[in-house]
């Protein structure tokens, strides 16, 4: 009890400090750890009090003292502890005297259990501790600012571009996986158009889509092409399979399929059946073709084994004669390089073999059946043609996926550039998009509405339009003649921010009334379609005129489309032949995106 106020006092002090300074849980820990010391003092003190040796007869002495018995009780107890034989008559008399006195003793009064002096202090400290512990100290924790949502903005023109891309891909594709990817791409474009995504989300979704597409891409396409080429080499040896071999060599799989089907038909027909020599050549070609991939793998393996043995022997020699000179070392290094190359080649061959396994089987079966029954062999060739068809479809799907991947990369690059260019560039793009469609600034009530206050108005659109990231990077200049000024530009300058202005589509004479009056024209007479073809005199509008006209009216019209396609084809060729440095390819493609024909 004596030491109880020590830990209690410390606890009160510690709690006071904690509450006063509003310490966090982690900051409180040292205080509580130090508190172990007073607690240990208390525990040790209690332990010592419990286990310390107490003087003998303390209680009986207290009784004697209280009753004034001159130690008679204690003495009696002391003597009674002795063996009876050792007791003297006087001791016995003393014991009996003590026993007689025991009845008069009042231990409760003699040795009262006193309340320790520290009790009051301990109670007060405990009460203080309770009060402090229930005392609520409010912590002011500033909440993190609400996340600001800045939607990713893409110009309407670009949105339309990517919508078109998605539409085109969807139309071309019938592979379910590719279609799913296209739909996801389309959804991404729509979400960007609706301002539902911020920059981070857009990039995340593009990354996800790109990753999924890459995962689905058939990375063994090269191996397959290689296998087909090997096949073509063997099939070329027979006159009957030459067309198919040529098609396979040029990767015209549809043609190869067609050639194989025709060969099958030919074999089936009894009237135009090839002679025995031709059939034998065909059989040999088919047999060899079916084994091409397998043999290629075997050859590689054989070469590799030989090289490995040579390598081992070189290593052994080097171990025996370490000072043989630099020649074995260079040979070893060369061998290692060759081995690595062969490993890669073997891997490709194995993949090719895997890809072509079904076709190989069909061709081998056809060769075998040709010996017995030409009709059966024709069936096998049909199967082989189907397999090539499967491969062709797969390849088409891969191409679509690659195309989508390319578009995604373009879109990502575009967004990166837009991120660098800032708002100004976005506004320029908006205006450019409108003009490219041949619309004025107020044509849709859109462009002018986004120009804050119309402060720059028509002024800003003087001179050539520059495309770039706006941060000193490369930019593309699009010449715009001074005379070319649409209504929209004027309107934009005159009526800043008038987004409610009705657009051109709503003007009289240019729209459609949804409520048709009267029934549709019912033509009862018969009509005859007459086609009149115009003669091309070669004197049509020149490309420069078309381009000039496009600058005036926007990038619309069939003539412009033709010119654009010609130029774009040349540009794509240049891009594919690496004539354009990789750092500038984006800008070339971007340029053509921007000047693409609009509907």
């Amino acid at each position, binding site marked *: 009890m004596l030491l109880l106020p020590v830990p209690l006092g410390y606890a009160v002090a510690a709690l006071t400090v904690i509450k006063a300074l509003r310490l966090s849980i982690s900051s409180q820990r040292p205080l509580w750890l130090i508190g172990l010391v007073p607690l240990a003092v208390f525990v040790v003190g209690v332990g010592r009090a419990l286990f310390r040796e107490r003087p003998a007869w*303390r209680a009986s002495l207290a009784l*004697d003292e209280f009753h004034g018995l*001159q*130690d008679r009780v*204690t003495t009696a107890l*002391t003597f009674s502890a002795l063996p009876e034989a050792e007791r003297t008559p*006087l*001791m016995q008399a003393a014991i009996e*005297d003590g026993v007689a006195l025991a009845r008069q003793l009042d231990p409760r009064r003699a040795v009262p259990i006193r309340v320790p002096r520290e009790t009051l202090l301990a109670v007060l400290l405990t009460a203080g501790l309770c009060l402090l512990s229930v005392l609520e100290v409010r912590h002011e924790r500033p909440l993190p600012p609400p996340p600001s949502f800045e939607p990713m903005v893409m110009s309407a023109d670009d949105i339309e571009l990517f919508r078109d891309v998605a539409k085109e891909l969807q139309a071309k594709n019938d592979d379910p996986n590719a279609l799913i990817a296209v739909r996801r791409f389309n959804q991404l474009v729509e979400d960007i158009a609706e301002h539902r995504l911020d920059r981070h989300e857009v990039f995340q979704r593009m990354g996800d889509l790109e990753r999924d597409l890459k995962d689905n891409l058939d990375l063994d396409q090269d191996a397959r092409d290689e296998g087909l080429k090997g096949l073509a080499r063997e099939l070329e040896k027979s006159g009957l399979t030459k067309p198919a071999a040529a098609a396979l060599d040029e990767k015209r799989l549809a043609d190869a399929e067609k050639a194989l089907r025709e060969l099958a038909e030919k074999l089936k027909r009894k009237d135009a059946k090839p002679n025995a020599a031709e059939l034998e050549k065909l059989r040999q070609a088919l047999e060899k073709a079916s084994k091409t991939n397998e043999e290629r793998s075997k050859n590689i393996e054989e070469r590799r084994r030989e090289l490995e043995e040579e390598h081992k022997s070189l290593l052994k020699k080097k171990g025996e004669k370490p000072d043989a000179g630099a020649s074995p070392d260079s040979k070893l290094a060369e061998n290692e390089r060759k081995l690595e190359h062969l490993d890669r080649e073997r891997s490709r061959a194995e993949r090719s073999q895997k890809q072509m396994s079904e076709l190989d089987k069909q061709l081998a079966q056809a060769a075998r059946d040709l010996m017995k029954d030409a009709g059966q062999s024709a069936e096998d060739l049909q199967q082989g043609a189907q397999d090539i068809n499967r491969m062709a479809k797969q390849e088409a799907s891969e191409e679509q996926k690659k195309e989508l991947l390319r578009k995604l990369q373009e879109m990502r690059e575009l967004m990166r550039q837009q991120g660098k260019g800032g708002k100004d560039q976005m506004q320029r793009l908006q205006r450019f998009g409108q003009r490219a469609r041949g619309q004025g600034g107020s044509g849709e009530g859109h462009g002018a509405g986004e120009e804050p206050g119309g402060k720059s108005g028509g002024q800003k659109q003087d001179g050539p339009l520059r495309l770039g990231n706006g941060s000193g990077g490369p930019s593309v200049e699009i010449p715009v003649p001074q005379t070319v000024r649409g209504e929209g530009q004027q309107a934009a300058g005159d009526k800043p921010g008038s987004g409610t202005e009705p657009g051109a589509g709503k003007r009289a004479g240019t729209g459609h009334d949804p409520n048709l009056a009267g029934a549709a024209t019912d033509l009862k007479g018969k009509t005859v379609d007459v086609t009149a073809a115009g003669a091309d005199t070669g004197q049509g509008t020149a490309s420069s005129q078309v381009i000039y006209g496009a600058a005036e009216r926007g990038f619309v019209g069939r003539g412009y489309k033709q010119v654009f396609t010609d130029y774009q084809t040349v540009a794509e060729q240049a891009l594919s032949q690496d004539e354009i440095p990789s750092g500038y390819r984006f800008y070339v493609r971007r340029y053509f995106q921007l000047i693409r024909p609009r509907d």
Partner: protein
Amino acid sequence: MTDADQAREEVSDFQKRIGALREEIGRIIVGQRDVIDGVLSCVLGSSHALLEGVPGLGKTMLVRTLAGALGLEFSRIQFTPDLMPADIIGTVVLDEGATGARTLEFRRGPIFANIVLADEVNRATPKTQSALLEAMQEHRVTVGRTTHVIEEPYFVLATQNPLEMEGTYPLPEAQLDRFFFKLEVPFPTRDELHAIIDRTTTDKHAVVSPVLSRNQILEMQALVRRVPVARHVQDYAIRVLQATHPTGEEAPELVKRFVRTGASPRGAQAMLLGAKVRALFDGRFAASIEDVKTTALSALRHRVLLSFEGEAEGVVSDRVIAEILKKLPASKG
């Protein structure tokens, strides 16, 4: 009758005899109850006492009365500087018998009595003092080649005057240690003085009669020795003794500062024997701590030697012992 009953009867007889003795002494000596009890304790403890008090307080009268009440042979020696050992021990004289034959005969000195009063013992020379002290210790006297045993009970009561120190030979510490108790005779109170005057200035002379025989005294001395002492009481006496030493574990600050040497083991013997006598005085069968406390002052005051600093500060041994008794708890721990 059991042994315990017999023991009870013995204690009861002891108490009665002491009562009778006190009563008889009280006929002559007025007051001085503590001194009388101290002297009786020494008699019954088979030891000797040193009485210190100013002249005229009845020291000699007390001893004479005691001797009368006890019916024992009494002798008184007045110590003077020229007193020789032979004067107290006795001497060999040439004796001529009836036939005319001459023989050397030992003539016993005053020391050969049951109760010897050595009055103003510090006035004799150390040589004479040591002759007395040898007899006190050994209860025998050796003269020449002959050893003469002194008859029991043997009790020496020495007195000394604390005032006149000039021309005295203070007893050395070793000799003081031979005295069981040192009793200080206090000055009588006013009532006591009235009684003393009444008794001594009238024609009424009280005569003391022996109330105890020699054998009874020896029985009582034997009984005292048989009184048991419980361990805690003995332990307390030892602790008190140890506390008189400056190096003692429980020595109070006063002892550490002002005491040169503490009491010898004889001090504890004296305390416990005195405690036993006290227990019997009260009719108890065993000594108590309170008995030890009561006898501690008489038993230790002449055994505790003060340091120079203590004497310079005017500290007396009684104060030191009182401090020890006050500070020392009955049980250790």
